[in-house]
């Protein structure tokens, strides 16, 4: 698939664009603005940008204070540091009273590559979903990220956005007029099974569907960018109409999109399910591509899992 910009780059661009429209928008970073790309905003609006230093917990608390005084803060760092170090502050200073703070965890997943485990945010979705009232979004490509940043800014309440380091396959070549929080996007319809994916796994899901179509298997593909609140209607319809659901995500096995979808399926429309994800393990250093392959997140992994799932239908 053709590669577009990294979603983190789209994050920075979207902030810089929104800054002109929203005077109350402020941006915080913890000494990673060149990597998270929040620097794009900082360069345009230095008086509304705060580099807090390497102090993620402090940054989250400061963002909460800014929000309580009417600002709309976006705070970013690597997903691993932002959510692991800022978690209690997100819980007490943000989630508890629904403070209007937006977060962006970049370099999420194992596709960050060579830096290794310490920098690989692979449990961020589980942790973000554990925060009451948080909206949790993992956009698939640059277009979707730009739209999601806008939707996050307009939403009243806390939002966690997930961004990746590498260039992301273009899923929306013709643009995307609006990002609706909590709404799945059917990218392809089919009756034999549904693949639900988000982030960097949407590309492999589409490729796998194309491959399976060649074998006479009709696959529905849902881009489930919003993990919380989940589009339960789309999940239930998929379970009822296609009878089997495969969930693919760049996250550990516990607490991510797979868990959310499984809850909806078991509660409303039980159907066989399978999961493509990192599993219950830490990865390692290596190129992003090599890691996606070794840890089972390629098109072939999605296609194989789909076929095995079909056999159980």
């Amino acid at each position: 698939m053709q590669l577009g910009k990294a979603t983190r780059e789209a994050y920075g661009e979207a902030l810089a664009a929104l800054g002109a429209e929203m005077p109350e928008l402020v941006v915080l970073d913890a000494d990673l603005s060149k990597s998270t790309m929040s620097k794009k905003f900082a360069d345009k609006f230095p008086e509304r940008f705060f580099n807090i230093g390497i102090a993620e917990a402090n940054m989250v608390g400061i963002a909460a204070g800014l929000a309580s005084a009417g600002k709309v803060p976006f705070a970013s760092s690597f997903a691993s540091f932002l959510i692991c170090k800022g978690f209690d502050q997100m819980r007490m200073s943000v989630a508890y009273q629904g403070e209007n703070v937006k977060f962006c965890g970049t370099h999420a997943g194992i596709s960050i590559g060579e830096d290794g485990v310490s920098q690989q945010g692979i449990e961020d979705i589980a942790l973000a979903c554990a925060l009451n009232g948080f909206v949790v979004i993992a956009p698939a490509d640059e277009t979707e990220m730009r739209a999601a940043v806008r939707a996050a800014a307009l939403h009243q309440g806390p939002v966690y956005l997930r961004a990746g380091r590498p260039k992301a396959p273009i899923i929306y070549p013709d643009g995307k007029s609006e990002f609706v929080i909590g709404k799945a996007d059917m990218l392809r319809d089919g009756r034999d099974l549904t693949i639900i994916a988000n982030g960097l796994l949407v590309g492999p899901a589409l490729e796998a569907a194309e491959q399976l179509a060649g074998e006479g298997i009709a696959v529905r593909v849902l881009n489930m960018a919003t993990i919380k609140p989940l589009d339960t209607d789309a999940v239930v319809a998929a379970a009822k109409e296609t009878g089997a659901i495969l969930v693919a995500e760049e996250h550990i096995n516990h607490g991510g999109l797979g868990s959310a979808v499984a809850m909806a399926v078991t509660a409303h429309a039980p159907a066989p399910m399978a999961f493509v994800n990192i599993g219950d393990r830490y990865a390692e250093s290596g190129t992003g591509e090599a890691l996606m392959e070794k840890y089972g997140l390629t098109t072939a992994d999605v296609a194989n899992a789909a076929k095995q799932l079909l056999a159980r239908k």
Partner: protein
Amino acid sequence: MLAQSNGLTLDALRDKAKVIRRHVVEMITAAKSGHPGGSLSAADILTALYFGGVLRHDPANPLDPNRDRFILSKGHAVPVLYATLAEAGYIPVDQLTTLRQLGSTLQGHPSKADLPIMEASTGSLGQGLSVGVGMALAAKMDMADYRVYVMIGDGEAEEGQIWEAAMYAGAAKVDQLVAILDYNKCQLDGTIEEILNWEPVAEKWAAFGWHIIEINGHDMAEILRALEEARQITGKPVCIIAHTVKGEGVSFMACNNEWHGKAPTADECAKALAELA
């Protein structure tokens, strides 16, 4: 019994530091990613620790319970630690260029899970000093006389946990603990002065109950004197504030924070190696 070895002469130490810097440049070039600036700023201090007769350690028995511990809390500088450990006989030198490759024990940041001679897994900044405090407390409980050395970055010291550890160690008079601050004046997005100027730094550590030694972290004699002084101090932890230059040893990397986290090209590598010949 684990004993302190005799250190190399000052000239031999300076040569050793050059060899270690060469490894650093070659490793990061081969890996095509990594952090040369903060590795090079720490090279002289690591050389002094491992080859200056400071650390009590034995490559033949790397996990001897009585060994001195060294924790690289600023884990992104791990190439300099791998290079030093290779020169000291812990890691085959020809393995160094497997840095950051799939399946290598030489992870992009220290991984105790992959390489047990790493005293702590680091890379999420701010955590190493607390682990060091724990080790020093255990030494006291066991009436062991090993010492714990923790290197932290100046940017890293913006993390609150560093100050929680510093406050506790000072209040609890945790001796046998030496923090070495690699004060190279830079972090990731810019200089310390631009991002979060936390001077006066010596006064801060002193106020938390630490014995302060301030040195030029590239002057081998000064480094050795400081480490010797640190060994004599009892009743409080020691903080060595080492003024260093990020990228020290390679002219085009020195004081140029572009080299915080960028790999040299083959040409740049050759140029750097020529300077380090």
